[in-house]
């Protein structure tokens, strides 16, 4: 039944007890995005090391189960990964919504995120899943800007 695919155990687990949830005590950059359409809001807190690797990540926010689960799985996925890795994840994630079948490599890369392939049939909810990603992109951009102005 489609219902259990989209709102299955994985999504429910992540939305009820999201991983890496909370305001970080120390962080290099934080960024907040809010959806004008529905009021969902996500803030990411990141620490990065000199080689542009994500040392630690956490997030806070309020929103629908899809948004929270996406943020939770994403936060776990990018831990200790490089920004380049994140950009690859994002590209694969976007393809989940448009391509009929998930490539085996993509599936391995994305892990639990493949549950969002059900959103092909719910285009109105894709924005919910994308909000944490857009927040993270902006957080990283913001970090790059801060770094570039440093003397």
């Amino acid at each position, binding site marked *: 039944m489609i*219902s259990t695919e*989209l709102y299955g155990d994985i999504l429910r687990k992540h939305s009820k007890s999201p991983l890496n949830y909370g305001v970080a005590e120390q962080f290099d950059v934080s960024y907040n995005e809010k959806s004008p359409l529905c*009021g969902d809001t996500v803030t990411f807190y990141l620490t990065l090391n000199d080689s542009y690797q994500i040392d630690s990540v956490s997030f806070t926010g309020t*929103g*629908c*189960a899809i948004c929270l689960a996406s943020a939770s799985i994403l936060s776990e996925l990018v831990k200790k990964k490089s920004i380049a890795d994140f950009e690859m994840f994002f590209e694969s994630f976007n393809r989940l919504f448009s391509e009929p079948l998930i490539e085996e490599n993509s599936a391995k890369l994305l892990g639990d995120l493949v549950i969002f392939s059900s959103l092909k049939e719910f285009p109105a909810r894709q924005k919910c899943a994308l909000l944490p990603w857009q927040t993270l992109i902006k957080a990283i951009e913001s970090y790059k800007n801060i770094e570039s102005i440093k003397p």
Partner: protein
Amino acid sequence: MSELVREVLPNLSESDILSIREQFPILGRTVHNKPLVFFDNGASSQMPLSVIERLTTYHRFEHANVHRGVHYLSQSATDSYEKVRGKVQQFINAKHEEEIVWTYGTTDAINFVAASLSQFYFKEGDEILLTEMEHHANIVSWQIHAVAKGAKIKVIPVLDNGELDLDAFEKLLTEKVKFVSLIHISNVLGTVNPVEYIIHKAHEKNIPVLIDGAQSAPHERVDVQQLDCDFFVFSAHKVYGPTGVGVLYGKREWLEKMPPVRGGGDMIREVSFEKTTFNDVPHKFEAGTPNINGVIAFGAAIDFIHSIGIERIAAHELNLLQYATERISELEKVKILGTASNKASIISLIMDGIHPHDAGTILDLDGIAVRTGHHCAQPLMKRFNLPATTRASFAVYNTTSEIDIFIQSLKKVQRILS
């Protein structure tokens, strides 16, 4: 809703509703392999076959532009089109046919009034009274047009039960107020506002009033003379008609004073580069080719309503409201937002720990169409500290069995998400 409803006419029976449903082909379809349960009528209602067929017949046999040409089709199309104005006049009991102006919808109608009045009526420091429960159409129109001329917006607050704070209203009704614009029935709370009282109070101070009837025209008999409102606006697509057609009712004295906002063909008498004179009311406000087929189909929608009787539709919907309210009260951790003593069949739900979007998607998977979000009433959402609600809104073709399906699905939402 006046008590007159139940005294005069017998209620619609179950078999009446079944034959009404048969007139709506879309109700026979499935969504995600489940029978469609269409509870999103507050956003737009379905069109019965008679209206769909009127549209098709018009284009099969009758269409031509209505700018008063001499050939047969043009004259006959003009005739069919103009007849509908009289139908709407009767539908809302306007005194004169020329008090009915065609617009493209409720939002278009309010924008027009705001724009036109802003050209001559509002001055720096004038106040416009709105309410906390207004639809964005009845907020942003005034912000764009009137506030630009220096007018200020003041807001009548909403009480916790979803009713207007009438004490606050009276205090806000000062000599600075030049206009009151308010929603008749809230598209979120279902509250039926005491508009006659508000109009009466405003008129004591010679303040004109616009009533946003988008949600009242479908649900109760509207008598603009009895209400004594200066303007009344509503949309065809919410009363079983097509999209792209709206009605602005304005008292003749107002329409005659108001400048047109759109210029073009049909709204003029004589045009030259030196000077142009305008046509009479209401044509003065109807520039360009109108939504001809929409207006004609709208006429068929009014006929459809009359074939049943608006009071019987209202009574049936109130039964649905009562039944739904009872069944929802059986559920734990589900609250109805808005418990006004006078309500129409619009129900906004708050489900503990469950975001409306998630509820909406799971309901959708069960074939149930509800609306989730802020319903174009962000200030109202803010007042109740909510990001969104899940809204079910009924029409004549909905049934108590559909409400039963809805309740079962709400229980499933709770099982899955909490």
